[in-house]
């Protein structure tokens, strides 16, 4: 393993915050730290980048302890992107990026032709060539993050450590930044360690995930091993609402009470209705949805009364009965507009049943709330 932490204990002024941290990263791989605010992700990152003194344990690059390297030696192997905002005076973005050449330049910081080439390559990599001559103080947050990443790239590290690189960024810039990192890992063979708040993105970008909570590493492994079932819910102590690990989406608190509305759904058509009902705190029942329908993912997060059927199988008579019972209890019946084809004829039956029973049939839920 290229970069390893073994039985590392980290904290401030001798007080242990997190103990027994062990992990490793190969070059070309991405490791993400996730966990609630204040769990100590930054503390770990600061310790392994030597900004903070370790309390116990070892951190090694190619089996050499990083604590024995000189400042300059370490700077040539490891570069960082920090959360602190910088305010350099009268510096252009190009000059900020060129600072990454610090460990390689002479005593007066003179840039050689090779240094300049590396600066423009780094700028190209983060797609910010056009910013080179702009003053650093005049650019947006998204651009700042890219420039700081270019600075770190320019340092030609084998390991790149980034503390919440995506905070303050809008979704487009988040995607771009993470895309650049993937490229960096594969093209430049850099080992990347970063902390992330966006667990959905963490699952998509990382080769390996570490979950930090309390005074220890709660869980670690490949994203598909970590993101299972209710784990995220317990990691972040989510008491209301839920996180769908499959879709990487957040659902808010399910409406409470007896369902007064039945939504005839399927084919993803139900989701906008579920959301509308949730916003108005109106409990609802829904059916009959195949379990491979995207409606099913959202419905089961927002309602306890979901009639679902096993995928790729005919729907049994008992499911139909179950749905009818729910329609009986509801005053309103919403037809979400799913197509009715050869394999979901039961929906037509339910619609007719609702009509027979004199339920108010709506095409949209708005009427309910006006």
């Amino acid at each position, binding site marked *: 393993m290229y970069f390893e932490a073994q039985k590392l204990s980290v904290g401030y002024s001798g007080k242990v915050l997190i103990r027994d941290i062990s992990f490793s990263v190969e070059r070309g791989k991405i490791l993400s730290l996730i966990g609630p605010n204040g769990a100590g992700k930054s503390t770990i990152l600061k310790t392994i980048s030597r900004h903070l003194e370790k309390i116990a344990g070892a951190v090694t690059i190619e089996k050499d302890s990083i604590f024995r390297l000189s400042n300059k030696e370490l700077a040539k192997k490891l570069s960082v992107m920090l959360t602190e905002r*910088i305010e*350099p005076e009268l510096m252009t973005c190009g000059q900020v990026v060129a600072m990454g050449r610090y460990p390689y330049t002479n005593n007066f910081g003179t840039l050689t032709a090779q240094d300049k080439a590396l600066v423009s390559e780094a700028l190209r990599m983060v797609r910010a060539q056009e910013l080179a001559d702009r003053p650093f103080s005049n650019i947006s947050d998204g651009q700042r993050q890219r420039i700081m990443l270019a600075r770190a790239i320019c340092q030609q590290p084998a390991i790149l450590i980034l503390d919440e690189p995506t905070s303050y960024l809008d979704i487009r810039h988040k995607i771009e930044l993470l895309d650049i990192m993937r490229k960096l890992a594969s093209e430049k063979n850099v080992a990347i360690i970063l902390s992330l708040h966006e667990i959905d993105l963490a699952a998509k970008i990382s080769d390996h995930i570490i979950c930090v909570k309390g005074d220890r590493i709660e869980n670690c492994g490949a994203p598909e091993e970590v993101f299972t079932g209710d784990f995220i819910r317990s990691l972040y102590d989510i008491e209301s609402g839920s996180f769908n690990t499959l879709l990487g989406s957040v659902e808010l608190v399910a409406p409470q009470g007896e369902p007064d509305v039945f939504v005839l759904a399927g084919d993803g058509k139900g989701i906008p209705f579920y959301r509308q009902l949730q916003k108005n705190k109106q409990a609802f029942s829904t059916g009959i949805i195949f379990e491979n329908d995207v409606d099913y993912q959202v419905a089961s997060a927002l309602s306890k009364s979901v009639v679902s059927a096993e995928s790729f199988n005919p729907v049994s008579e008992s499911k139909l009965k179950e749905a009818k019972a729910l329609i009986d209890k509801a005053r309103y019946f919403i037809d979400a507009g799913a197509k009715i084809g050869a394999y979901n004829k039961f929906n037509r039956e339910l619609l007719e049943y609702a009509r027979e029973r004199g339920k108010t049939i709506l095409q949209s839920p708005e009427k309910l709330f006006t």
Partner: protein
Amino acid sequence: MSKSKIIRYQLVFIALLFLIALALVLNVNTGSVSMSPVRIFKIIFMRFEEGSVDSNIIWRIRLPRSLMAAVLGGALSVSGFLLQTFFRNPIAGPFVLGISSGAKMCVAFATIFILGSYGGMSAYPLVFFAFIGSLIVTGFVLMFSQKTKNMSMLLVIGIMIGYICSAVTDFFITFAKDNHIASLTSWSMGSFSGASWPALGIVTVVVLVALFCSVLISKPMDAYQLGEGYAQSMGINIKLFRWMLIILSSLLSATVTAFAGPISFVGIAVPHVSKMLMKTSRSLVIIPASFLCGAAFCIFCDLIARTAFAPTELAIGTVTALFGAPVVISLMIRQRRKKH
């Protein structure tokens, strides 16, 4: 570095050197005894009329004084630039940090309790006490810099130490005789009068050494602009670097305060002007630029101090503040406007 930038640097340096030359000529030329420039030229470069009254005025009074103003002004500006880098704060300067107050405290102590009446700048014991006073304050600032990493907090601590020194000074003054108070007041307003060749020699050696060392740490000074975290990650030994910065800047400002008393606003205003002129904050450029700029500024201020209300001489601090403070204000406002 692009070509246009290098041309800009060269032009500004040439302009500054020219300004200094002009200021020196004017300064040597003006005074209660007027002489023609040709005569002055002959006296200085051809040792014309050696031993005459005019020659003595030039050689013993005007020339060392002007050169002293130049070297000390330059030193003060560089000291300000180093402190602003250290604190990453545009208002940091030797005066703000209480270094001058520390010097004044020790000078007050010496005048009132040890030396008796003080009669001129060539009094080396006073230079010694002022220097010790500056170093005491620096020592405290350094000590606290180990405890806190927050630069604004450290700046506030420096200002508070300055207040304590002022309070102690006032306490001393309570027990002072009137003539002591008078001489202390005249000291604390600062002046380049009474500069001598030996003093100029000492000052020049100290300032040149400090200047040379500052140029040597210009590379980490640039990196330090990105903040401590990044600076460290690029391989800088932060502790050592911060010690170097504060020791060099205090050495410079202590030297100035010791030989010319507290001179305000040069340390704050001049580095800003230099950055504006050069349109960069690269230390390798700004250190020499600040030095030249400060030298020119102080010779001109001394000229004004000497001539504005002749034969009464103004305190140098009066002039520098009068010109320095508006410069600082206008620069700050311009900078803000550019940002938004």
